[in-house]
């Protein structure tokens, strides 16, 4: 970015005014399903993805894509303050909500951190134009929070790698284009030592994508089976067996999530889907607006909203400036997960007896029960709240690490279950 430092940077407020005008003319209201991401049928979901690509292209053509991305890769080279101003101006408007996470962060962020110049030039501009949607081939069946325990293997074969294994919980893999994939390239060293990261094209022979049905009927999440998938060495990100160096930043970017300065989104859009207006609407539909108990719950939901917003601002200010630990995003992640769970519970509580059964024409109350069933998803995606607590206690407060049975042991010898023997590469 040194080249850019010679030019004066546009004043944030001037930028804001320019953004306001442009947004006013170009970005419409959000559409149903943009944030819930649940569609009764695939065609409708694909249409929404296509629309998101178009919205990203519109941002790009309008000169507002990649606000904090380097200009060398098609971005604007501006500051987090500019991104924040843009997001604030975008409040209440449509935006490419399926591209925020994981495409812009952690995927594009990881490419910026570790990609070769060639990889960056090939993918970042395409991402900014809406041409590429990225996914994370990270979690594995049975792997849980231990992402570094990946057993998907990559074996070198000339100037290619051959990948075999299975990944899971991949949001939108069935309509995505590329993915970052964490694979094991050495089983004879300890867990963190034998990993490597690759860029994998999602739709190719040997890569089978299955859909996972969730409790609420949605099937956005996928499971992938990789069978002899060949990846050129030029699609390797970072050094061989140094994948956990990449992985650590990857996890960091994932925890930062929607609060990353790389992400363009309407301010407040993902702030507790069941936040203030939603709980008020449910209370009104149920004729409960005047009940002091309901008001207490509305006030609580609103408190969590406001506190969460200002906590994220504090972290956004304190981490880059070094005033807060670099691990502080775990605090935001923990707070956000717990707050979202509580807000889902509040909505469910307010809806009372109406939350268990519903007719399609029931209004806001129709999905309050289903959201409640799914409430823990907020404490899972992007790293569980349990992992956040470990990070806070061990990395921020310096408390002793949990004993683990997989350090200083060849990965092939790590216990993986009461009945299982160690898995090895094929």
């Amino acid at each position, binding site marked *: 970015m040194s080249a850019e430092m010679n030019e004066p940077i546009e004043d944030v407020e001037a930028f804001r005014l320019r953004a306001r005008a442009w947004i006013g003319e170009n970005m419409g209201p959000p559409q149903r399903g943009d944030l819930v991401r649940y569609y009764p049928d695939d065609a409708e979901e694909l249409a929404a993805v296509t629309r998101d690509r178009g919205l990203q292209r519109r941002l790009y053509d309008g000169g507002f894509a990649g606000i904090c991305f380097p200009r060398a890769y098609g971005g604007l080279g501006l500051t987090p303050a500019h991104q924040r101003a843009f997001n604030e101006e975008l409040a209440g408007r449509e935006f490419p909500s399926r591209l925020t996470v994981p495409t812009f962060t952690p995927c594009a962020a990881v490419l910026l951190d570790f990609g070769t110049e060639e990889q960056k030039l090939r993918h970042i501009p395409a991402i900014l134009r809406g041409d590429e949607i990225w996914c994370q081939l990270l979690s594995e069946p049975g792997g849980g929070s231990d992402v570094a325990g990946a057993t998907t293997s990559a074996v070198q074969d000339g100037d290619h790698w051959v990948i075999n294994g299975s990944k899971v919980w991949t949001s939108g893999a069935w309509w995505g284009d590329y993915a970052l994939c964490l694979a094991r390239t050495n089983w004879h060293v300890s867990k963190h030592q034998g990993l490597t990261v690759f860029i994998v094209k999602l739709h190719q022979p040997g890569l089978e994508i299955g859909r996972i*049905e969730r409790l609420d009927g949605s099937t956005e999440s996928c499971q992938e089976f990789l069978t002899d998938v060949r990846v050129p060495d030029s699609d390797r990100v970072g050094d061989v067996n140094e994948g956990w160096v990449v992985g650590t930043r990857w996890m960091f970017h994932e925890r930062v999530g929607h609060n990353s300065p790389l992400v363009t989104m309407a301010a407040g859009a993902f702030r507790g889907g069941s936040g203030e207006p939603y709980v008020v609407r449910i209370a009104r539909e149920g004729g409960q607006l005047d009940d002091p108990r309901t008001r207490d719950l509305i006030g609580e939901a609103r408190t969590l909203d406001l506190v969460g917003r200002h906590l994220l601002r504090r972290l956004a200010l304190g981490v880059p400036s070094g005033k807060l630990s670099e691990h502080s995003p775990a605090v935001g992640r923990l707070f956000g997960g717990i707050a979202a769970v509580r807000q889902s519970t509040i909505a469910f509580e307010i809806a*009372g007896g109406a939350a*268990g059964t519903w007719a399609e024409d029931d209004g806001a109350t129709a999905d309050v029960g289903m959201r*409640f069933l799914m409430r823990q998803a907020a404490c899972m995606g992007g790293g569980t709240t349990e992992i956040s607590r470990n990070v806070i206690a061990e990395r921020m407060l310096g408390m002793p690490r949990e004993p683990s049975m997989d350090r200083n042991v060849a990965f092939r010898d790590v216990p993986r279950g*009461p009945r299982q023997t160690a898995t090895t590469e094929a």
Partner: protein
Amino acid sequence: MLLVLSPDQDLFRDTTVRLLADRAPLSRLRQLQTDPAGYEPGYWTAGAELGWTSLLVSEADGGGNLSGDGLVDLSIVAYEFGRHAAPGPLVDTSVVASALSRHDGEALKAALGEILSGAAAACCMGVTPWQPNRPATIDIRRDGDQLVINGTARPVESAGQAQYLLVTGNAAEGPTQVLTPKAAPGITIRPLKSLDVTRRFAEVVFQDVRVPATAFVGAYGGAADEVARQAQVAAVLLAAESVGAMEAAFAMTVQWAFDRYSFGRPLASYQALKHRFADMKSWLEASHAISDAAAAAVSANAADAAELVSAAKAYIGEYGVELAQDCVQLHGGIGVTAEHDLHFFLRRITLDRTLYGTPGDHRQRLADMAVGREKAA
């Protein structure tokens, strides 16, 4: 569930479990998710043969129980229904059968016979005295020898499957109950969506539905006590059912914690998780205790029955859901998929919490009783 079962109860429980495992295993219930009834033909009559429908009915009417406390016996079935996420109109049919057994009338007894045999299911509607914000909107008025029913009830469990509807409505003289065949002209059933995939709910609309005076269950305008009793019975069964579902979810998650390794150690070795399991265990034992206490008190018409029923619904509604959701969290991603079995129990517990009074509704009632006693003291 009861700590000590009599040999009769033990046998009854075993046969119930066998029937559920045989006719309604989760694998089958998955296939029946979109089935209108949620269970296969013959399942319900087989249960009726075992005695599911008879326990609250007097011997004179062809019923009978095991221990002298029919509701306690029936709570064992309800518990196993929860533990197996079993389908079928257990709660409503039981409530209607016991109501019919307590009242005379040829038409009523004929219907009771059909219900006992499992040939007919029944459901009751409007029995929600604990939901002050959602008052029953069914009106019943006299018109000569006939009664005319108008209004809407929702949610009504198994209305689609039932042959008889026990309707609670407001008459000018007070709460009134009538039994009507579902086939009566003017009745419309609209299926509802629900959180559970093994049970079925509907909205029932009455438009000038006419029934003869023989359809009365109890006195015109004098059903208040009967309705309160029915609601207690239903709440006891729902509580027992939820405890069964809690037990299943908990057992499944404990096993998961032993089997799943993370960072080379079983989840069960992480103290933060162990302490959450300990909390859940305390909620579970407490739920068993209050559920059993409520069943015994209602069965015995004890003075503290109303309080114990409300404490059971309040506690189990609150902590049952928290337990189920913590089981989901401990399972991780797989816990929110349809593929894993856990969701059957999560759904059961969550939906049960919303029926016959939410925890909030019951806490208000408990406060009313506490304040009342205080004032009297």
